[in-house]
């Protein structure tokens, strides 16, 4: 066994036995059965019983339990109640990341500009949040600042721009200039500025609000684990290119940067890649769950040419995968959209090291080309879930399991992240998975 495999086995052992006080022996058996099913799929083994059913939703629980995303985003007590009832009623083999429930009171207090939420910025009351792109990295030369000292750029340039309440942080001194006596007063004086103090005060208030919110979510996660339900992931990371093109630059500017500022982008991504690994590994260390969820965006078919993908997208993403794998973690990249022109890259990692969540790619073809090397998770399309009948879902799942589950290495999930889905269709998917997924 190689070094990464040994580390992974240690993480799997901790995942299986998380040291929580299970509610009953049955709850412990249910928890361990579910985790073992996922481990076996990741390791390309047939499970003793059946195909695992993996979650891929954000606000579907709110709709399914008869409330709205706005209600769960406004009140953590509603969120906790809804998620607990949903998870116990639907019976996925893991539960989706509750951290994605964006708290409206916190986003409002922060004057958070990356997102708009139901009832704000033209987003309908009964909808979910929307993400808004913007050139937060204003001038291309800031790529150089980011590459040189990412934390400083983040704290004094980026954060004050996208969090209105923290605009005063732009006046902070650079912490690495706090060297010996000559810089003592120069470093400390900015903390006396009214705009800095105002932002720090707000940050403390928002921190308290967030701690209280997260405390309730944390209690729920603990309770669900004690009752037999494992979380679907323990960490999160992004492809460095997506960090640049989703978050720091608008899509249009990022696409122009490929032509105009390619070297600067690559230098910035070289800086971001080890930070993505660090973020993911710290999270799985803390949570005890080795799964690192990685939603991928601009790598899908249609955004970049093959040459651009090879130059800009894949090298640092592969580095992030390798760093997480080296640490014993399991990257679960979500290949949202189609990756039909990218299949060859999906195979470039050690056998059993990554589990790919698939949306619009050809599952039958992927099983042939990639399925022997890594676990596939997917891919009941949103179109059927929306416009079809439960019988259509049943048929799709039966064929999907025929195509993709043979020999193990498969988990059943929706292809698209589910929000306003029809409950009877998701239930039909789960029922079909239980019916046809037996080994």
């Amino acid at each position, binding site marked *: 066994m190689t070094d990464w495999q040994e580390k992974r086995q240690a993480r799997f052992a901790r995942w299986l036995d998380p040291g929580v006080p299970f509610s009953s022996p049955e709850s412990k058996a249910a928890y361990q059965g579910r985790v073992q099913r996922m481990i076996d799929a990741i390791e390309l083994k047939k499970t003793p019983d059946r195909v695992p059913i993996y979650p891929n939703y954000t606000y579907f629980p709110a709709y399914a339990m008869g409330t709205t995303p706005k209600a769960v985003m406004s009140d953590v007590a509603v969120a906790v109640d809804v998620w607990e009832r949903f998870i116990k009623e639907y019976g996925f083999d893991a539960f989706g990341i509750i951290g994605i429930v964006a708290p409206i009171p916190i986003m409002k207090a922060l004057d958070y500009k990356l997102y708009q939420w139901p009832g704000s910025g033209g987003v309908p009351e009964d909808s979910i949040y929307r993400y808004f792109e913007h050139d937060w990295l204003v001038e291309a030369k800031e790529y150089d600042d980011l590459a040189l000292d990412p934390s400083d750029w983040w704290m004094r340039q980026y954060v004050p721009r996208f969090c209105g309440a923290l605009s005063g942080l732009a006046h902070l001194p650079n912490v690495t200039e706090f060297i010996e006596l000559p810089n003592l007063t120069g470093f400390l004086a900015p903390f006396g500025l009214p705009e800095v103090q105002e932002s720090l005060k707000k940050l403390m208030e928002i921190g308290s609000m967030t701690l209280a919110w997260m405390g309730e979510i944390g209690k729920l996660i603990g309770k669900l684990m004690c009752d037999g339900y494992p979380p679907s992931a323990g960490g999160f990371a992004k492809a460095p290119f997506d960090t640049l093109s989703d978050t720091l630059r608008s899509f249009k500017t990022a696409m122009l940067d490929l032509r105009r500022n390619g070297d600067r982008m690559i230098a910035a991504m070289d800086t971001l890649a080890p930070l993505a690994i660090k973020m993911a590994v710290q999270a799985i260390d803390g949570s005890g769950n080795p799964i690192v969820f990685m939603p991928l965006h601009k790598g899908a078919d249609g*955004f970049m040419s093959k040459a651009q993908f090879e130059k800009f997208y894949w090298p640092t993403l592969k580095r992030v995968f390798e760093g997480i794998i080296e640490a014993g973690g399991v990257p679960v990249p979500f290949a949202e959209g189609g990756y039909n022109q990218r299949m060859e890259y999906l195979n470039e990692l050690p056998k059993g090291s990554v589990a790919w969540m698939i949306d619009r790619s050809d599952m039958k073809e992927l099983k042939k080309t990639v399925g022997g090397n890594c676990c596939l998770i997917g891919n009941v399309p949103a179109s059927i879930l929306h416009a079809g009948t439960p019988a259509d879902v049943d048929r799709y799942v039966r064929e999907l399991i025929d195509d993709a589950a043979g020999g193990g290495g498969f988990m059943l999930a929706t292809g698209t992240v589910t929000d306003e889905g029809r409950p009877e269709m998701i239930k039909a998917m789960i029922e079909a998975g239980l019916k046809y997924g037996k080994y």
Partner: protein
Amino acid sequence: MEKITAAMADMLEDELMDMTDKYLAEGKDPKAILDAYQAGMTEVGKRYEAGEYFVSELILAGEMMNAGGEKIKPYLKGAVGGGPGKGRVLIATVEGDIHDIGKNIAGTIMELAGYEVKNLGEDVKVETIVSEVKSFNPKLLGLSGLLTLAYDPMKAVVDRLKEAGLRDGVKVLLGGAQVDDHILRYVGADVYANDAMTNVNYLNSLG
């Protein structure tokens, strides 16, 4: 002028801008310069079709066209005719959805292919689309949406076109990563596209 066309086609942005300034200062025919830009754009479209160019090149070509156009405009005496070219196309992201990337790429490609494209933007109300179909009279209506909540507004547009007696006069194309045969039937549209070239091929097939 071949140099202008080549600089556009080869994505040599700085050279293209310098050359444009130089030619205009030397008193060269501004219409000929603009035509050379257009020829460059046509070449960009060909390279996109061949898979050599991708989204970043289309966007940069658009930027160069706009920047060059701004330089050339003051030198042009009369109006430059756009004209309907090969036909009119109306595109919109439907109500409730604000995603614009795919729609705008599709619009650019159809323009490069010689169609007159009117882009209504995002989160466009059903009634607005229907009344624009009536007044603009396009041969193709492209309805775009990324979210699954776009499915029902797409269907509402087609239903309203039928009620208004406009459905037979226009082909309806659905665009977006999550549209497929199921949604085509659900909405009652004519064709769907997950990539920009499908639109152009379909349009060309209409004659």
